[in-house]
């Protein structure tokens, strides 16, 4: 059993593709027309054969209340690992990305939360070696 696909509901697929590729730096993997929408996936440039992130239209009526409730409480729907969180925070802030949580030291990890402009909060995590800091 393997993990190959993770679904993220986005307000607008084209805007999401632009944000996840041009801003975050992911790479387009599949863009297959499917009626009005597309089967749209991106992958990390560090793992082109790795798990794909499916940017799924948020049209289902259950998606709105689900995401609104989580966004209100600041709960991220996706977690991405980075090597240098302060550097990523600076880079992304420079590109106009809004962080709802600045880089915060939780002892075992540095974390931050950003708004993906497509309806989701995304957590960036930089794991820290155990025994350092905390």
């Amino acid at each position, binding site marked *: 059993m393997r993990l190959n696909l993770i679904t993220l509901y986005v307000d607008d697929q084209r805007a999401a593709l632009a944000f996840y590729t041009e801003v975050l730096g992911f790479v387009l993997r599949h863009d297959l027309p499917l009626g009005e929408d597309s089967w749209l996936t991106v992958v990390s440039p560090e793992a082109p054969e790795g798990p794909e992130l499916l940017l799924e239209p948020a049209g289902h009526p259950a998606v709105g209340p689900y995401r*609104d409730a989580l*966004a*209100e*409480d*600041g*709960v*991220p729907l996706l977690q991405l690992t980075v090597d240098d969180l302060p550097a990523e925070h600076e880079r992304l802030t420079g590109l106009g990305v*809004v962080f*709802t*949580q*600045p880089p*915060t030291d*939780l*002892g*075992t990890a540095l*974390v931050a*939360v950003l*708004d993906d402009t497509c309806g989701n*909060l995304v957590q960036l995590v930089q794991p820290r070696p155990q025994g350092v800091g905390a």
Partner: protein
Amino acid sequence: MLPGMADVYRALDDETRRLVLDELAVRDGQTLFEICATLATRHQRSLTRQAVSQHLAVLESAGLVVTERRGRTKLHHFDRAPLAEIAGRWPLPEETTPCAST
């Protein structure tokens, strides 16, 4: 006693709620998710989200926490005004040096 001050004393009579105020004093304007995470990782207090939400409601009804919407997210801020009421009621004598120990 001023109206509502009993709620302030009651709200402060709980270590978890005092820790929440500690964390907001370090960085104001946090989401419920962040507060849960810092309580669990920095203070080894693994409360359910509902429990933390109830603690925040107690602090909010006492006027110690106020919430603000930023975009779609609700942020919690520490309002120290009720604490000034306490200090104003029992002010330190002029010549007294505040004790530094905790």
